[in-house]
């Protein structure tokens, strides 16, 4: 995606992460980046620099819980939604859908107004 796309992405990162977790249950950081990449056919690439601060923030807010599991001799941190996280995910997704609708309306060409002459 173009650099300006990144700007739009920043505000929606939380929504994306929460939404993915509602679908997949338990995920680790790299898995989230891969999943986003696959589903958008490489249009959206989450960098680790953007992802991990958001994950830790969500955890701090009590929306996610983590568990560390040893995989291939490395510690892998899995994230799961808490009940309030689940609620927040639905809230955020519906908010975002509304936002997209509003934006669409805003971007549509306005039909000519002065027809009554």
């Amino acid at each position, binding site marked *: 995606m173009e650099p300006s796309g990144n700007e739009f992405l920043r505000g929606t990162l939380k929504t994306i992460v929460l939404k993915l977790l509602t679908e997949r249950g338990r995920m*680790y*950081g*790299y898995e989230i*980046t*891969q999943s986003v990449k696959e589903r958008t056919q490489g249009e959206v690439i989450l*960098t*680790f*620099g*953007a992802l*991990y*601060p*958001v994950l*830790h*923030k969500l955890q*701090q807010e009590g929306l996610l819980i983590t568990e*560390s599991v040893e*995989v*291939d*001799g*490395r*510690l*892998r*941190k899995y994230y799961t939604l808490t009940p309030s996280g689940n609620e927040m995910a639905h809230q955020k997704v519906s908010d975002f859908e509304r936002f997209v609708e509003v934006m669409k309306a805003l971007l549509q060409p306005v039909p000519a107004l002065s027809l009554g002459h």
Partner: protein
Amino acid sequence: MEKLNPQQVEILYRHLVWNGTDEALFEELLDHLACEVEHYMWIGLPFETALEKVQLEANAKAVKHLRKTYQIELTMNEEQLRKADLDDIVFQFRNKAYGAYDLRQEYRNSLRTALLMTVGMVLMMMALLTTVSTGKWTYLSVWGLVWTVGLLSFSYAVGTCIRQRIQQRYRIVR
């Protein structure tokens, strides 16, 4: 899927240390980079090329950017900031386990204990010297009272000191 061996993970580990990765993100980032290398190897690159590619992506600038974003995102909110004392603010995102944080937190207690111990010792010494020079001793006199007060404050200070030591040891073991 290709798996990295411990030596190969070690290379990534050193790369992250070299670039000054935040402690709170270290394990996760290591796994992330290892997964990336494994992914590149899986699509057919040799280990060296895959490693180079990943190291280029996770260069010092990217890691620094991550640390910055992290600190902005996870800084204390208004309420936490209101409750926090100066030590908490100074030591946010710094290594608390190193010891300076504990020293600062304990400072008031240590000062009080030391003061009580000194005052107690001086009072006891005064009472003792007076008793020796006059050659009389009874608890029911001014110097007897001075001795008792000195002894009490000294033993209280020693007791506090020992209790703090035990607590500190317990905390480190935990």
